[in-house]
């Protein structure tokens, strides 16, 4: 078996706060294979962004603390690297794009200036060559008249264009792994479709792996091969995207899928959307037993006291629930 591109084992991340030590991510493990697109899905506060940031060690430590676990990039444990080695990895082997391209780009530097920076840091290219490379990259992400755009400042570009610039920058050193944190959430649907298509085609060209973080199951269906569903700092279900969306095993996954209004679903008069009642639990008030039990329609007595373990199901799937798969 070839080594997975990214192998996260037993990762636990906590934050020191005035209210004590709070656990944001509780012992999650997952693998991302070469050339695969893996989606990490969950609602705000479930720990998906914290997990992603920890891979690049971008969390401020303290207050954050990675208290246990391993993050292996092709077998190399990123948690044991020093600051300098980490910088060599960031933007070179792993790069990241963020939700809001306006805040991720530097507003007082031109696009060209920001793009060249990556090349000068990680390669031996001269400034002139780096500029030429930047033009190539911009045209690869389908930005019209790329040469002129180098002189532009972020505020002169639209949201979609800014996200394209971010993607172009992240591709500068042909990374093995691209982490995309809600890359299309701030964009309009038409632009979202363009960006997703772009990511897809770039992945095919470069053979890189993508870890995409999203709350939009539609996006998952569109580009991911495998999915992890996170709830309250834990992975509650994982599996191949199609199988998971068609036949969810965990009540939370089932609820999420049901609460999305579907286009073309026949609207009955007075029909209501299926909703998940209650709110996402906060960090300091994680429920006992299964963290989903206060919102779960099927919860039984056991769910209040006993935490369900991840179980294996057919077709490389996992889920954590006390109930049998057929009983939902």
């Amino acid at each position, binding site marked *: 078996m070839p080594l997975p591109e990214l192998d996260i084992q037993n990762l636990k991340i906590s934050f020191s706060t005035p209210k004590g030590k709070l656990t944001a991510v509780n012992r999650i493990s997952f693998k991302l294979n070469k050339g695969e697109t893996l989606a990490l899905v969950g*609602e*705000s506060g479930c720990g998906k962004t914290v997990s992603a940031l920890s891979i690049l060690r971008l969390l401020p430590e303290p207050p954050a603390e990675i208290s246990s676990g391993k993050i292996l990039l092709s077998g190399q444990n990123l948690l044991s690297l020093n600051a300098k080695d980490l910088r060599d990895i960031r933007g070179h082997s792993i790069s990241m794009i963020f939700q809001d391209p306006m805040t991720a780009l530097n507003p007082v530097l031109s696009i060209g200036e920001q793009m060249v920076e990556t090349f000068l840091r990680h390669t031996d290219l001269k400034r002139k060559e780096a500029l030429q490379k930047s033009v190539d990259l911009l045209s690869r992400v389908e930005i*019209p008249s790329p040469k002129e755009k180098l002189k532009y400042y972020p505020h002169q570009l*639209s*949201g*979609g*264009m800014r996200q394209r610039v971010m993607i172009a920058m992240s591709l500068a050193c042909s990374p093995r792994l691209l982490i995309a944190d809600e890359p299309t959430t701030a964009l*309009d*649907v*038409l*632009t*979202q*479709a*363009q960006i*997703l*298509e772009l990511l897809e085609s770039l992945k095919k060209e470069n053979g890189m792996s993508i870890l995409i973080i999203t*709350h*939009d*199951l*539609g*996006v998952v*269906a*569109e580009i991911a091969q495998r999915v992890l569903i996170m709830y309250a700092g834990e992975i509650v279900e994982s599996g191949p995207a*199609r199988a998971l*969306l*068609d036949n969810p095993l965990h009540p939370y996954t089932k*609820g*999420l*899928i049901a*609460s*999305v*209004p*579907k*286009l*073309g*679903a026949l*609207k009955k008069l*007075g029909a*209501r*959307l*299926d*909703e*998940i*009642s209650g*709110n*996402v639990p*906060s960090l300091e008030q994680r429920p006992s037993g299964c963290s989903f039990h206060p919102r779960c329609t099927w919860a039984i007595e056991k769910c209040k006291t006993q935490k369900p373990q991840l179980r294996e199901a057919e077709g490389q799937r996992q889920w954590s629930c006390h109930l049998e798969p057929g009983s939902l």
Partner: protein
Amino acid sequence: MELSFRTRVVMNIKKEIPLLEVVDLKKYFLPTKNILEMQVASVRAVDGISFTISKGETLGLVGESGCGKSTVAKTLLRLIEPTSGQVSFFGTNLFDLKNITMRNIRKEMQIIFQDPYSSVNPARSIGNILQEPFEIHNCRDKKENAEKALQLLERVGLTSEHFKKYPHELSGGQLQRVGIARAIALNPKFVVADEPVAALDVSIQAQIINLLLDLKEELDISYLFISHDMAVVEYFCDRVAVMYLGKIVEIASSEQIYKSPKHPYTLALLNAIPKLDSGKIKQRIPIKGDISSPASLQTGCAFQSRCPIKEKRCEEEIPNLQESAPNHHVACFFKQ
């Protein structure tokens, strides 16, 4: 003797005057000279749109960011003044009214904003926020107001526990419920919902949409529902208007829009939505580029730069909104 607005409302309902009638509404943000004395172009945020909303009906207003949807909402309620046009609410033209009369009519028309955090005062408690509408509209009895505020909280699915809390202590979904409670406090006939679920989590979105549907039935509210999410709009609205760069390019019943969209832009919007269900292999319409800036002047159809079926005529003439099927209006020369 001048009749009160409510009396006139009742009379006009009997005469079947539409709840809201918008005629040729325009809002231009006019050119200002900047410090370098350069002329800056005017922005045609809303460029001559017309529609009606009947009583009990929900109209969806769809479009990408920058197309002018929110400007329509604010102009309708006179939160900003229009450049020209007419908005009749139960037959009364709002733009003719003095501020004091307008304030009275605002009892009947309310708005729910996209971001619940920025639409409430962070320094006031939830109870306080909910009593404000009553105070503004001359109910000075504090005890009664507090009681009404409590009832409102319960109506939108919160509890008396939340009464003394402050906005930062609530989650986004809970705070949006407060926003809704405030909007329905004075029993309005018409509510503008400006992207009410866009800032919320998926599982919370469904809760809020269901709440809005319940209130519609219970209180007989008509909505203008602004959204960029075509799936939510289909679920929620009776009729849909699609906006592009300040103009309505297609307006029809939900069923017509979703079953037989006629404008290439509507079709593209529908196609761009990522779908959950398997099986359907969809034909994507290649839409390139971004929405152009409303400040850039161009002749002809506003959508021409991105349109897959553009022809010579589209560069020269502006297509008008025309009825192409019963109650189905489209602004395109080469509609599907």
